[in-house]
C-alpha cells in the first residue's frame, strides 16, 4: 500500500519502536509544500553537488575491464550553492542528489518519480528509481534534459517526488545492504559487482575462441606499412 503524504509525515515524526523501525527524512525544509495533504508522495529537493561526465577522458565506460573506481577519470564534481544555478543543456546527463537524507526501515521502500511540471520542460530526474528497505543516504538523481532548451536547475528546488510503500516480508530475513549505503553524495557505481567474475570468465573464453584481441587493450602503436622493395635483377 502506498502511504499518503499525511502518513509519511506521521511515520517520520513518530518515535521509533526499535532501530529497525526507524524511518527518517532529514531535513524536510517545509512539510506544508513538500508533503501536501491529500497527495501520495513527498517532494524532494535538489542538492548542491553534481557529477558531470568527462567525455574527453574515456572512450567508453567498461566496468568489466576497468577498476571499479572511475571517479577521477569519469566525472567532474561541481558544487553549486543554494542561490546559484546549474545549467543542464539538451541531451546532457549529470548525476545530482537530493537535499534530504533518507533512512528506510525494514518495512518500507520507495520509488522516485519526476514531477510533471519539470517533465513538461523535458527533464528526466531518475532512471534507477527503487529505494530498498534499510537504505540510508541521499538519493542519486540521474538528470537528463530531453528538451530543446537549456534548463537552469536551482539547488533547493522541489525536483522530484518519492512514493513510499509498505514491504510485506519475513521480519527476520536478512536484508542485503546496498553498496551505496550511507552515501553522503552519489558514490561511484559498480553495476557489475555481482557478476564480474563470471562475466570475465565468459569474456576470456570468448576471446580465446574467436582469437580477437581484448577490446580494452591499448591499440598497437601506429606504424606505416610500406611495400617491400621489389627484388632487383
Amino acid at each position, binding site marked *: 500500500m502506498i502511504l499518503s503524504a499525511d502518513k509519511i509525515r506521521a511515520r*517520520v515524526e513518530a518515535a*521509533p519502536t526499535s532501530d529497525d523501525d*526507524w524511518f*527518517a527524512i532529514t531535513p524536510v*525544509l*517545509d512539510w506544508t509544500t513538500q508533503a501536501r495533504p491529500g497527495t501520495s508522495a513527498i517532494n524532494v529537493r535538489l542538492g548542491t553537488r553534481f557529477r558531470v561526465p568527462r567525455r574527453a577522458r574515456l572512450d567508453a565506460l567498461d566496468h568489466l575491464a576497468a577498476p571499479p573506481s572511475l571517479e577521477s577519470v569519469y566525472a567532474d564534481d561541481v558544487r553549486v550553492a*543554494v542561490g546559484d544555478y546549474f545549467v543542464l543543456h539538451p541531451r546532457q546527463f549529470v548525476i545530482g542528489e537530493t537535499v534530504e537524507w533518507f533512512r528506510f526501515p525494514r518495512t518500507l521502500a520507495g520509488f522516485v518519480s519526476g514531477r510533471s511540471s519539470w517533465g513538461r520542460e523535458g527533464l528526466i530526474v531518475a532512471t534507477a528509481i527503487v529505494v530498498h528497505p534499510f537504505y540510508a543516504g541521499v538519493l542519486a538523481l540521474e538528470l537528463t534534459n530531453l528538451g530543446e532548451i537549456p534548463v537552469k536547475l536551482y539547488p533547493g528546488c522541489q525536483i522530484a517526488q518519492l512514493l513510499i510503500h509498505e514491504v510485506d516480508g519475513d521480519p527476520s530475513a536478512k536484508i542485503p*545492504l546496498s553498496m551505496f549505503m550511507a552515501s553522503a553524495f552519489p558514490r561511484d557505481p559498480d553495476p557489475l559487482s555481482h557478476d564480474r567474475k563470471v562475466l570475465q570468465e565468459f569474456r576470456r573464453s570468448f576471446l580465446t575462441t574467436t582469437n580477437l584481441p581484448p577490446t580494452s587493450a591499448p591499440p598497437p602503436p601506429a606504424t606505416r606499412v610500406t611495400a617491400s622493395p621489389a627484388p632487383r635483377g
Partner: protein
Amino acid sequence: MNDYEFDSALMLSGRYFDKIVILLDEVARPIHYPAPPELHQSLTQMVKGIFGDTGDLLLFSEPGINYTIVDLVEKRLIDIRIGLNRYDFQPPAGPERIFLVGLPSAESDQALIHCIIAHEFGHKVWDESDVLIRLQLSASVKPFMYLDKEEEQVAAVEVATEWLLELASDLFGLYIFGPAYVCAAIHYATAVTALDEASKSHPPTRVRLHLLFGLMDEMYTKSMNEQGGREFAYGPNMSQLFDMWRPAVDASRLGIAQMSSNVDERYARTAFAAIRNPDRVKELRSMARGLAQERYGAYYKQENYVRDMGLVRSIRNFIPPVQFLNEGKSELTSVPGILNACWEYYLGGLEQFGSVLPATISSDRFALSAIFNEFVLKTLELSGLAGQWREANGS
C-alpha cells in the same frame, strides 16, 4: 597638478595598489586550496553569531599544520577604502568583517578536529576586547615576578601574557563547543606538538589541557558521590577518553623541569607562577565565560550536552543529527551539539559504523573513515542549509 602633487598621488595609489594585490592574492587562496564546502554555511553562521550579522567567511585549506585566521577588513580593506575615498570613489557596500580561515589541508575533511577553529575565533574576540584585557592580564602577572632588570620584567610579562591569551582562547573554545573542544584539542595538539613543548607564544600542551580539564570537569559535573568524588555528565566513550588523560594533565605533572623550550627559564617560571595561581585561573575563566555569553549569546552548558547525547542514537542508525527527530516537532540541532554527538560516537570506534555497511567498505579502514568524515560533513552542510532556509523563510 604640479610635480609634487603628482608624485604624492602616484605614491599613494602605489601603496593602495600593493594592498589590493595582496588582498586579491589572499582572496584567491580559497580557489586554489579549497576547503570542504559543506563547512561553509555552518561556520559562517558561527562567525555571524560571534562577530555580528555583517561578518562573512572565506574558507580554504593550506599545506601546513596550523589553523589560521586573518581579518581581511582589519588588515587590508580599511586602508583600501580610505584610499578609494580619497579619490571620491565609493566602494560598493559589502560585509563589514571578512575572515579568511585556513584549515590544515591534510585534515581539512575531518570536521571533528575543526572545533579548534573556536580557539582562533577566541583570539579575535580577546584581541577586540582589547587593550584593557591585555593590561589586566599583564598586571596580573607582576606579583609573580622574580626579576630585577626592567627589560627582563617586560620580556617575562610578554611571555606570560601570550601564554595567558592562549589559555584564554582555549577556554573560549571550551565554552563554545563543550567537551568536543577538549576531544579535538587532545587529538590535534598531541599530533602536532609534544606534551611539554613550549614557545614564547604557546604554553606547553600539558598546561593547556590541565586548564581545560579543570574547567570542563567543573562545568560537566552532574553530582557529587558519597565519597566526595564527582559524577560527570560525559557520554561513556568521552568519559573513557577523559579518564585516560586526567592523570597525564594532573597538577602534579606540571612544571618547568620537564618543559622543552627555548624560552628563558626565568620568564617561563614567571608565566608558570601566574598560570598556576588559582585566583588568576578563576579570573580567566570568568572573563572567557563573559565573552562567550556576550559575543555568542550563550555558552554550551551541561543541559545542552546531555540533550545532544541523545543524537548518538541517530548516528548509530545512519541518520544525520540535523533535527531533534521524532518528538512531533522539528527543532534544529546546533553545530556544537552535532560535533559532541559525533565525537561521542567516533570514540566508540568505527567498527560499529562499519557493521551495517557492505563488507567491501567495512573491511577497508580508510574507506570507513572517509565515509564517516563525509557523514559528519554532510550533517554540518544540512544543518547550515536548514538554518539558512528558516532564516530566508522568516520562520
